[in-house]
């Protein structure tokens, strides 16, 4: 070593964990205000002169409206406006388009089609007066026969629910198919064994703790409409309002403030929003509508309500030759699903994507019933939850019939690690995963062999233990834009980053957090790309006047799409900062190297400038010819969906005398690629598992024969508490996403999607000796007891059984 050589330098890159970058379990910054009660929700919005709106809902499920007399309501002091369907019709607003190219009543004109449907609304000085006035409205109904399931809907003499639609001669919404019918038929003809199973995935509800609401504020002087509202997709709403209310898009501002949960409930445009907007335009005053709990549970977007007839063609040795599925889906009175327009039953055909299946065919029929519309989501959109639940229930039934161990049966049919990219039987392209490894991690964690011994021991004393497995890879993060759109709007997403002079920054995206922790996670991606400490970056979403155009947050798409845009916009900033660094270091750009937080001269690593120094230069010392400022935006259209994998294993004990079952252990192995904030990821998984447990054990919205909704309050629609919620043991495997800029895959919904089958399979395993193959969710004790004692499958399809 000679004296002239530069001293060997160790890297001066910042410690990524210390600056809250990728992999840091950074505490959620938004929790600071939430835990202090300083969140700002729609109901916290108070504007001068604001009025209050309440909705009168139909007490009956199907009836012709003979008359509506609102005169007594108008007489109540403090009432400013009473809206009925007839009045909405004069403005061409009695009906509105849904997200699935159907129409939906805003206020009923001709008929009511489900219990809880909006019939009239009152705007008054305070909500108490508005409620009093709703009660004073007299509506005369002429009852019609009620339909609460697809069998009734397709009966020859069924009343036609959508007699408002020209050419609608029955209650069928669509008949759709995908896959290879002929090839599948051939495979079935050659099968050694065909396994069949029927089941119902019950109607559930996202039930976010904050119900829906809006504050519409139309300013006659400026012509501008501002709407503060509970929406997961503010830009889509702006577009919808422009189309429905025929207002110019640049004079519409949608603000989605803090949201108290969404789970898909806050994707659709609800009549309440539209009415509050019209009322504000008519009255020229701000109008607030805050939905109550019953209104939320009874009328807003539900999840599931799909019936399956599933068949598997099997070879004796356990190889799956083909899968055939038929679904009947119950969409309620209006087809209001939110899903890419070319797929009528969402991405149900993503089913069996983790298994190597030569051929498959799916037929799907959707029907109208006298129930609330929706079919959007409950922590998983696009019907992927159904796809994976059906898959894993079919897998277990088939393994049992073949007498093959259920873990082994899965393992032998998995897509192998070296088979990627893999074309699924329905045409999706999966790109990465280590399925067998994930399963093995799970089996080891639960001590599969040990549990089987314990189970056999317990059986000798008449105790019923069971173990259930559920494995799945699911398509998360729509687009790409070739295939995925909502109402024709392509499913890309966006980010805009502005780095200020002192190196602090503001990031905005087209997504909208409802509890997922974007304010924390997005800053970590920027920190990873730019070395700016996460705490120096503020994240803002939800205001269409400031946020770049995006498709919002649902379908676990935020990290796969908007998160990718955040990485890409950061890279644009880094590219510009490199030019500034070259200028400051007085070398050419090619001689500048990057390490986290700093550019340096390749030949003289000690000579460097920090990203903050570059930011200062962008505003105070830019080279000739370079645009000032350090801002950029990025629109990201993903090349493919991301395909996370989950393996969930549950053990239970069933009390044969009561049908009550207790969860013994839950093991979850998730491979969502690279984890940005491991703590947040684990929180998402635990929350998802809790919802899976809830759906499998206690939660459903059902109906009696008259169409009365059972589950319109939290005494009947059950949310699990900390008391009965089991503990979770979480494990991880990391297979980075090959096409995502930081290797991440979606995770928000995995456990909700994959979890339910693990719980149900465990209970079914415990009661296998009674010859029972299916009990519909939720596995309420009485259903399990019936299965054990009557030795038959138990359907949970509505209407509920009563003595009457």
């Amino acid at each position, binding site marked *: 070593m000679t004296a002239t050589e530069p001293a060997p330098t160790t890297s001066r890159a910042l410690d990524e964990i210390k600056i809250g970058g990728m992999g840091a379990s950074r505490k959620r910054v938004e929790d600071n205000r939430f835990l202090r009660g300083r969140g700002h929700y729609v109901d916290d919005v108070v504007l001068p002169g604001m009025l209050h709106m*309440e909705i009168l809902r139909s007490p009956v499920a199907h009836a012709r409206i003979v008359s509506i007399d609102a005169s007594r309501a108008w007489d109540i002091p403090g009432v400013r406006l009473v809206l009925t369907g007839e009045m909405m019709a004069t403005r061409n607003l009695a009906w509105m388009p849904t997200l699935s190219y159907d129409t939906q009543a805003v206020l009923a004109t001709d008929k009511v089609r489900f219990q809880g449907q909006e019939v009239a609304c009152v705007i008054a000085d305070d*909500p*108490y007066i508005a*409620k*009093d006035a709703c*009660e004073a409205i007299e509506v005369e109904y002429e009852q019609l026969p009620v339909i609460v399931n697809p069998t009734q809907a397709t009966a020859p003499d069924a009343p036609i629910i959508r007699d408002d639609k020209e050419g609608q001669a029955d209650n069928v919404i669509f008949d759709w198919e995908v896959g290879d019918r002929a090839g599948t038929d051939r495979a079935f003809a050659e099968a050694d064994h065909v396994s069949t199973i029927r089941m119902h995935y019950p109607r559930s509800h996202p039930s976010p703790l904050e119900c829906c609401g809006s504050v519409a504020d139309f300013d006659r002087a400026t012509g501008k409409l501002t709407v503060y509202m509970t929406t997961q997709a503010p830009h889509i709403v702006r577009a919808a309002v422009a189309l429905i209310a025929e207002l110019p898009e640049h004079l519409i501002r949608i603000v989605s403030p803090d949201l108290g949960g969404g789970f898909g409930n806050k994707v659709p445009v609800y009549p309440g929003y539209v009415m509050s907007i019209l009322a504000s335009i008519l009255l020229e005053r701000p109008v607030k509508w805050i939905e*109550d*709990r*019953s209104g939320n549970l009874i009328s807003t977007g539900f999840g599931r309500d799909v019936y399956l007839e599933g068949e598997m063609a099997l070879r004796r040795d356990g190889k799956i030759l083909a899968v055939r599925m038929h679904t009947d889906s119950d969409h309620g009175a209006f087809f209001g699903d939110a899903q890419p327009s070319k797929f009528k039953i969402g991405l149900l055909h993503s089913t069996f994507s983790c298994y190597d299946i030569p051929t498959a065919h799916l037929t799907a029929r959707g029907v109208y019933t006298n129930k609330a519309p929706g079919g959007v989501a409950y922590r998983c959109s696009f019907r992927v939850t159904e796809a994976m639940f059906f898959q894993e229930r079919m897998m277990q039934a088939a393994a049992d019939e073949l007498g093959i161990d259920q873990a082994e049966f899965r393992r032998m049919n998995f897509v192998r690690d070296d088979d990627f990219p893999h074309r699924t039987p329905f045409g999706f392209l999966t790109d990465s995963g280590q399925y067998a490894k994930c399963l093995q991690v799970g089996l080891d964690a639960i001590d599969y062999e040990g549990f089987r011994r314990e189970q056999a021991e317990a059986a000798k004393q008449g105790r019923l233990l069971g173990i259930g497995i559920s494995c799945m890879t699911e398509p998360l993060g729509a687009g790409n834009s070739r295939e995925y759109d909502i109402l024709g709007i392509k499913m890309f997403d966006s980010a805009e980053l502005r780095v200020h002079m002192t190196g602090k920054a503001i990031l905005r995206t087209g997504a909208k957090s409802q509890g997922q922790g974007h304010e924390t996670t997005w800053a970590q991606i920027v920190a990873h790309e730019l070395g700016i400490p996460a705490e120096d970056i503020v994240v803002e979403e939800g205001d269409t006047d400031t946020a770049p155009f995006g498709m919002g947050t649902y379908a676990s798409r935020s990290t796969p799409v908007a998160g990718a845009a955040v990485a890409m916009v950061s890279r644009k900033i880094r590219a510009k900062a490199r030019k500034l660094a070259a200028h400051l270091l007085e070398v050419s750009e090619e001689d500048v190297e990057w390490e986290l937080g700093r550019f340096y001269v390749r030949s003289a690593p000690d000579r460097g400038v920090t990203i903050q120094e570059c930011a200062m230069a962008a505003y105070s010392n830019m080279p000739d010819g370079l645009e000032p400022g350090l801002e950029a935006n990025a629109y990201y259209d993903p090349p493919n969906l991301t395909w996370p994998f989950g393996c969930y294993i549950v053990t239970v004990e069933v009390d044969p*005398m*009561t*049908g*009550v079952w207790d969860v013994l252990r839950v093991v979850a192995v998730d491979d969502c690629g690279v984890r940005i904030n491991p703590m947040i990821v684990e929180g998402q998984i635990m929350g998802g598992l809790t919802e899976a447990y809830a759906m499998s*054990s*206690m939660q459903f919205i*059902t109906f009696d024969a008259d169409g009365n909704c*059972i589950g319109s*309050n939290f*005494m*009947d629609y*059950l949310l*699990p*508490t900390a*008391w*009965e919620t089991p503990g979770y043991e979480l494990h991880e495997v990391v297979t980075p996403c090959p096409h995502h800029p930081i290797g991440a895959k979606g995770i928000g919904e995995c456990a909700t999607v994959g979890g339910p089958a693990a719980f149900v399979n465990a209970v079914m395993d415990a009661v296998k000796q009674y010859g029972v193959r299916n009990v519909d969710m939720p596995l*309420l*004790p*009485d259903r399990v*007891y*019936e299965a054990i004692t009557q030795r038959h499958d138990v359907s949970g399809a509505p209407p*509920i*059984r*009563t*003595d009457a």
Partner: protein
Amino acid sequence: MYPSRFRYEAPRTIDEAIQLLHEGGAEAKVLAGGQSLVPLMKLRFAAPELLVDINNLPGLDHLDVAADGGIRVGALCRHRDLERSLDVAQAQPVMAAAAPLIADPVVRTRGTLVGSLCHADPQGDWAAVVTALGGHVVAQGPGGRRDIAITDFVTGPFQNVLAYDEVAVEAVLPPPRARVAGGFLKLERRVGDFATAGTAVALEIDGDRVVRAGIALTGVGSRTVDARAAADSLVGQGLTGEAIMRAADLAAEAAQPTSDHRGSAAYKRHVIHTFVTRILTRVSQTSEAAA
């Protein structure tokens, strides 16, 4: 959720409260813990014109467990007080077993046992416990106090015998004459849920013989079911397998459940049978172990 308009009064003396109720007539209601009344008002299933809040009345928050084992529960004694009382745990196992199964911790800190009796919910838990123990309610009105046996107090779903100007001031559980035993089992879908079916069993045992028995059921009828025949079948007997089975059969027969989304009538009847069997079997096993 917005209740109808109502007047609210918070009197300081019981006489004042009774006077207000008297003036309010049929449109007035007592407000105790509010855990049943307030939800009903928010849903507008109840719309009283006057609420007489008794929470400021002195001398109603007692929970007295006498040396002889008799218990007096004041109208402002909360579920939580019963749940946490060591005296109750020692004196009455059936009460101690039921208290933590009422609702959830939030509700238990406000709701009252007496309010629960007054509310007369066919799915309420305390009426079954008090029925099994042979207790009574003390009511006070313009004409003074009177005792009302619990079996006379509840007259139907959400109905009691109180006159509109009477306040239930306490519930009284008589002192036992022998060693107490018993239990409370409830099938709920989740913590804080009302009973799909529930069973309260209260026994007094002398040597190896049952000298007094009460069995009452909740969730399986339009009001709390007093399974008298089942209870009587145990008196004078030892807790043999045969006696237990007979009592369980009779209790299941006494149940009048209906089928609904929580389960079929047959299932609920079977659960009652199972619960009676389980409670009595446990008592017989612990008695044997103690002997």
